[in-house]
């Protein structure tokens, strides 16, 4: 299917004629972003993220008629993905850190006498690990506003909360990250 066809046209085909090829094209276009977002939300658990991404697209298919084109299709998908993630998080109640995670390693990486690219990648790894200490809501706010580059208003729509709450989550998340990654702070 040619990529010149817009998301809106593909959605119309799915809604009107149940065109599964059109839906397949929508999935192909957005799978990377949705899976990447869910990997961030699940602290890098790729298998769980892919399961949740599949659930997200199935829910999107079932509810496509209710999509009003008021927001971007990707934003609508992020919203479904976040709800699916929340539903799963409630079921599993897993708020513990991954087993291979050792917070103490963070300061060790920062204290190494590394510069440039090495230092940058070490900080990235530590940041990924430190994201696990955030609450689900704080992590989701960071993922939507930074990784998915949504505005506060769009993030609020995705997360289903007021804009002020999104800002608060981001502020708290950054405070926690700063505290956790204190060894990386410039002298």
């Amino acid at each position, binding site marked *: 299917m040619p990529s010149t066809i817009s998301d809106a046209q593909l959605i119309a085909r799915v809604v009107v004629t149940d065109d599964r090829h059109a839906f397949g094209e929508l999935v*192909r276009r957005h799978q990377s972003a949705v899976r990447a977002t869910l990997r961030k939300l699940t602290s890098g658990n790729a298998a769980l993220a892919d399961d949740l991404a*599949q659930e997200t*697209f*199935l829910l999107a298919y*079932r509810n496509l008629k209710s999509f009003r084109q008021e927001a971007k299709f990707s934003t609508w998908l992020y919203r479904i993905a976040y709800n699916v993630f929340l539903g799963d998080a409630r079921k599993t109640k897993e708020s513990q850190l991954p087993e291979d995670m050792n917070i103490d390693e963070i300061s060790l990486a920062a204290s190494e006498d590394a510069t440039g690219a090495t230092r940058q990648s070490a900080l*990235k790894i530590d940041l*990924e690990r430190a994201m696990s200490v955030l609450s689900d809501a704080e992590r989701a706010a960071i993922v939507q*506003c930074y990784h998915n*580059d*949504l505005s506060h208003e769009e993030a609020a729509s995705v997360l289903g909360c007021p804009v002020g709450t999104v800002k608060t989550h981001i502020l708290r998340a950054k405070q926690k990250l700063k505290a956790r990654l204190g060894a990386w702070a410039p002298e």
Partner: protein
Amino acid sequence: MNERVDNPGDDWIERALADASREHRAEYIADDGFTASVISRLPAPFALPAWRRPVVALLWICGGLAVMMSLPGLFDQLFRGVMAILMSHRMGLVDVAMALILLGGITWSALVYAARSE
């Protein structure tokens, strides 16, 4: 695009988040059968049962016969009236052929309408 992300200023955590976000957006997760897996899990498409068309056609025929049986006088009078009109006119082969074509067309249309898929 968030201005905050592109202009992180001198806040080091802001810079770290912005850098990580740029890398995140640049990364592409290969499909690797993901789309096919989603499509295979979609609910089966709605399809009309195979027996629907013959049953609908049969019901139309039964309905027509029932009307004919319940109102025999009406059809008798209608038939006589039509015959009287036809007998009072000279009819050629073309007229008969046209009548047959018209009747056939009406019957065929009724059957198509009854057997349509939607």
